[in-house]
């Protein structure tokens, strides 16, 4: 079942200099994405998940670390080779409104990658390819003469997907690709993504803040908090038995669309600290219900605990308490 | 609302009553700023007009443009074949700073004038020395006799004024200190210049006659106010803000005449506009084409455009106006021909190939530009291609020194007291009119001392002028000034001076 990783992120850090100081967007991030799998990346705003997605594609230059893509560190690549490699990895964006150039027809939008990589053959062949792609993502071939503004949000997202798929990448980063959509449309797009992944054997990093979507879609999950990976393991395991207090809290905070479900919850106090001056030790200690003095000083290593990796000094305690008990501890 | 009206009414009455001043103060509106207070370097009328109140020359022109002694005690004494000139000086003359004028001051002043004045250019090579002869006379030694000397010494355009030695520094006068009837009391650039009576002034004798004669210092104070806009000068005169205004638009003549508060002052034949032709390079080196220009132009229309009313100009081709001592009619039939056919003949004879004729003009002198527009029309009518090069005066000043930049440039000039100092006739002027016959005549004009003989020489030169067309004198233009009714004692002439002026009671 275990595949060799297509992507592996090693010691990745990113700091954005600002007038007020450096924003610590990513700190020593390590994880890998097995070929053919869908890995979910969850966290709240400010957790660094979007930056991480961009860094992996080198749309943002990381400050430190390596991103191995099929054995090659893409951060070392000169611009020309990087451009060539771009063919193998793509991104689908969150906002269906700003991610399509309003001055271009759908055909041009989808073709652009083909032209850039000299893939599409003649204009006619490219046109046919665009037509096929549009149909594959659930649109019609004659949509290619339209402009983006003539589509609904869900349809635009399909165009975005077609654009990413046009150059037949192996790896796709889906950055909150369904967050802006209404639930009924979101379901359509989720189905589409699943179909495509399976049909084309895609590897995908699925960035989301909605745990239920990740739980539904992903094989593995990476939970981030303030630039750090706090927990990483198979989705089923992390969801049923979270080993990090933050994961516990996140899971319990997510509203469950079931009025009959239990309403006992683990509500985190306070808010995510500023990435300008992240807390010492464990970055979560300011909000953690299980915080002990040690957490204030020592940065927890990402270590294997109970079949997943977790960065918490008290992961064993969290597991022992179980999700419900974890919640009780805060109340 | 009513309050506002009241306020406005008060405002307007106040501004009208603002015209009443202490008796003895005269407000004079000038056509522009006095660019420099150094009269020796500038030929600008406004500079020379104002500075005459502060500075004086050895001689001054009278009504018939004859030099009369001013700081000199009498006429010059010629000897050594007119090559040595002794000029006696008046004594007891005081400078504004209280010091006495000495012959040394006069010598230094004249030497500086030789260095800096554009008017001294012809004369300078002739001067061997200028020395003091005791305390009350100076002696000028020349290499050759020079007939226009006295005119030059009295002509108030970049004139040889006498200043104290101390204020002469290499490039400029360090203070405004002269012997004139008025002293500079206050100068606010572009706002006003206040000239107040100089109490230690020693007036020359004799009945006032233009710039010569007694200087009475009737006014306590004269205020020279630069007002570049003609309308404003007119309005200011009408409202009583100014007592005297230079450069009034001809259109306002009737208004000045009909008003109870004002009267027009017409200065006939004040100056002549000139079209200078480039004899050094380009189209105008071809005599036929020069003739073509001469025959094509319509001086009357050009003057009308420049001035606006035929009362205020005379289409006269002679180099000096009728009545002037240097007036003659030699060659004037070549003037005001305005015959496109004849012009065309010359155009063909000259083998004109359609190269545009470049007329360099400035719009700072609007009448230059107006004449250029009319000239263009008539030249094109005759078959020329014409290009107006309209620049500001600073640019024109530079461009006209480069023969490659122009074919014709437009300027104007007052009637000089002696034709020998007319630069445009000289071979080394920027138009470069060089002709052996003319050069010899010009030389003769400078050295001959007998007036009648000189007049004949000049008539010959004028004939050559019409033949060779070094430049085209377009005509005589009058100037309109405005005066508050009852102002007297301001002589009529190219320069307004106010030392004998009186305000009405």
């Amino acid at each position, binding site marked *: 079942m275990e595949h060799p990783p297509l992507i592996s992120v090693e010691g990745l850090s990113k700091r954005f200099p600002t007038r007020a100081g450096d924003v610590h967007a990513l700190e020593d991030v390590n994880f890998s994405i097995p070929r053919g799998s869908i890995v979910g990346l969850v966290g709240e705003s400010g957790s660094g998940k979007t930056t991480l997605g961009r860094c992996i594609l080198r749309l943002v230059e990381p400050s430190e670390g390596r991103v191995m893509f099929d054995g090659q560190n893409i951060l070392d690549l000169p611009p020309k080779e990087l451009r060539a490699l771009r063919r193998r990895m793509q991104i689908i*964006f*969150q906002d269906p409104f*700003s991610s399509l150039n309003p001055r271009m027809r759908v055909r041009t939008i989808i073709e*652009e990658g083909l032209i850039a990589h000299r893939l599409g053959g003649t204009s006619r062949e490219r046109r046919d390819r665009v037509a096929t792609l549009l149909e594959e993502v659930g649109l019609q071939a004659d949509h290619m003469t339209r402009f983006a*503004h*003539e589509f609904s949000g869900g349809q635009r997202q399909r165009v975005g997907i077609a*654009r990413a798929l046009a150059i037949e990448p192996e790896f796709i980063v889906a950055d909150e690709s369904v967050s802006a959509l209404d639930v009924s449309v979101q379901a359509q797009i989720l189905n589409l993504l699943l179909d495509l992944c399976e049909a084309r054997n895609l590897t995908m990093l699925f960035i989301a803040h909605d745990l239920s979507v990740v739980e539904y879609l992903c094989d593995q999950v990476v939970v981030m908090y303030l630039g750090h990976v706090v927990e990483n393991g198979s989705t089923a395991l992390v969801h049923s038995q979270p080993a990090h207090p933050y994961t516990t809290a996140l899971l319990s905070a997510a509203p469950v669309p079931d009025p009959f479900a239990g309403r006992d919850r683990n509500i985190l106090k306070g808010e995510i600290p500023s990435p300008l001056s992240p807390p010492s030790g464990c970055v979560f200690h300011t909000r953690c219900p299980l915080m002990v003095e040690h957490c204030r000083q020592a940065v927890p290593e990402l270590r294997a605990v109970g079949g997943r990796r977790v960065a918490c000094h008290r992961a064993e305690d969290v597991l022992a308490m179980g999700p419900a008990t974890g919640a009780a501890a805060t109340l | 609302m009513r309050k506002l009206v009241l306020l406005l009414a008060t405002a307007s009455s106040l501004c009208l009553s603002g015209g009443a001043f202490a008796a003895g103060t005269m407000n004079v509106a000038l056509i522009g700023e006095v660019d420099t207070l150094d009269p020796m370097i500038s030929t600008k009328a406004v500079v020379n007009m104002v500075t005459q109140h502060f500075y004086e020359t050895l001689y001054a022109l009278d009504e018939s443009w004859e030099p009369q002694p001013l700081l000199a005690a009498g006429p010059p004494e010629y000897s050594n074949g007119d090559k040595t000139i002794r000029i006696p000086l008046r004594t007891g003359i005081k400078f504004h700073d209280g010091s006495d004028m000495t012959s040394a001051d006069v010598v230094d002043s004249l030497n500086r004038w030789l260095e800096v004045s554009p008017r001294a250019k012809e004369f300078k090579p002739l001067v061997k020395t200028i020395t003091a002869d005791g305390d009350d006379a100076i002696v000028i030694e020349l290499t050759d006799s020079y007939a226009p000397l006295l005119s030059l010494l009295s002509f108030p355009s970049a004139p040889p004024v006498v200043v104290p030695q101390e204020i002469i520094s290499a490039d400029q006068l360090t203070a405004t200190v002269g012997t004139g009837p008025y002293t500079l009391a206050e100068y606010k650039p572009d706002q006003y210049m206040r000239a107040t009576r100089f109490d230690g002034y020693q007036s020359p004798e004799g009945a006032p006659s233009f710039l010569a004669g007694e200087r009475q210092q009737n006014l306590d104070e004269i205020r020279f106010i630069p007002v570049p806009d003609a309308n404003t000068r007119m309005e200011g005169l009408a409202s009583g803000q100014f007592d005297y205004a230079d450069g009034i638009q001809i259109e306002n003549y009737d208004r000045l005449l009909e008003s109870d508060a004002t009267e027009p002052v017409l200065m006939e034949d004040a100056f002549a506009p000139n079209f200078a032709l480039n004899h050094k390079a380009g189209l105008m080196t071809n005599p036929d084409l020069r003739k073509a220009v001469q025959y094509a132009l319509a001086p009357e*229309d050009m003057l009308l*455009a420049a001035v606006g009313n035929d009362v205020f100009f005379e289409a006269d081709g002679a180099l000096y106006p009728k009545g002037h001592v240097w007036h003659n009619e030699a060659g004037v039939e070549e003037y005001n021909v305005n015959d496109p056919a004849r012009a065309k003949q010359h155009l063909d004879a000259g083998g004109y190939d359609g190269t545009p004729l470049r007329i360099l003009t400035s719009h700072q002198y609007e009448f230059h530009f107006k004449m250029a*527009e009319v000239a263009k029309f008539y030249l094109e009518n005759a078959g020329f291609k014409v290009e107006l090069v309209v620049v500001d005066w600073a640019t024109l000043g530079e461009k006209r020194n480069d023969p490659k930049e122009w074919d014709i440039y437009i300027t104007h000039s007052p009637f000089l007291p002696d034709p020998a100092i007319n630069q445009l006739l000289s071979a080394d002027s920027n138009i470069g009119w060089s002709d052996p016959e003319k050069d010899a005549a010009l030389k003769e004009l400078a050295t001959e001392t007998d007036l009648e003989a000189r007049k004949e020489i000049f008539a010959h030169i004028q004939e050559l002028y019409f033949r060779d067309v070094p430049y085209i004198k377009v005509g005589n233009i009058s100037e309109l000034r405005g005066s508050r009714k009852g102002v007297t004692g301001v002589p009529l002439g190219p320069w307004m001076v106010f030392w004998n002026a009186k305000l009405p009671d």
Partner: protein
Amino acid sequence: MSAVTASATHAGPLRVLLQNRVVTLSIVVLGIFAIAAIFAPYLTPYQPNGLSMRERLLPPSSEHWAGTDELGRDIFTRLIYAGRVSLAVGLGVAALASVFGVVLGILAGFFSRLDPAISRLLDAMMAFPDVLLAIALLAAFGGSLLNLIIALAIVFTPRIARVVRASSLVVRELTYVEAARALGVSTPRILFHHVFRNITSPIIVQATFIFAAAMLSEAGLSFLGIGIDPSMPTWGVMISAGRQYIDTAGWLILFPGLAITICVVALQLTGDGLRDALDPRIRKSI
């Protein structure tokens, strides 16, 4: 409501533009000015420089619709010919300033390393009042039609450059630019197809306003006697030349003043209309 927006957008900017009657009228007025300028020789029996000193300062009549000037030239004819130059100045300045501004603005907006230098330069240019900068430049270049256009284009460049820079900064962050980069699209193509093409609306709008502002500036400079070679009449030159006749022959300055005003109003209205039609932010809130 977004559906409504989509359909209004669908109507196309031109239709939105023409739906506004005032804007339509403005465009018609500008069209008349343009046609008059282009076909000037066919519209009048007189020559613009055809002077006739016997017909000076005639008031408007059936023969001379706008009277004659101090050299007896037909003012209506001169208005039409002057319109050629005035409009050429406006158009030329708008076009040239757009080119300069787009280059500077995109460079500053897209390449953050160039931004400080360019922004500083623009700041310095903005620190000069328009007219003063134009005067200084014209004094340096010398007054001619082309130099006037270049000088005014330089004066107005910061206006475009700042808009372009700001828009590029926004567009640069939009995800479709990122998508293009992710696709491996080359930078020049990104600059043109993704950045430039999406900021044309504010440029067009600004250029329209600059067109108007340049005409006013030209008139002002001509009035000061610094602008254009006055042998090539513009409306400003005509006012300037006619001002001394304001009491005796008011029509000399009345008509050119009206021409400028009408033209500038029409341009401003068109600019406003274009902004409404092209700016999606406003259109969303119809």
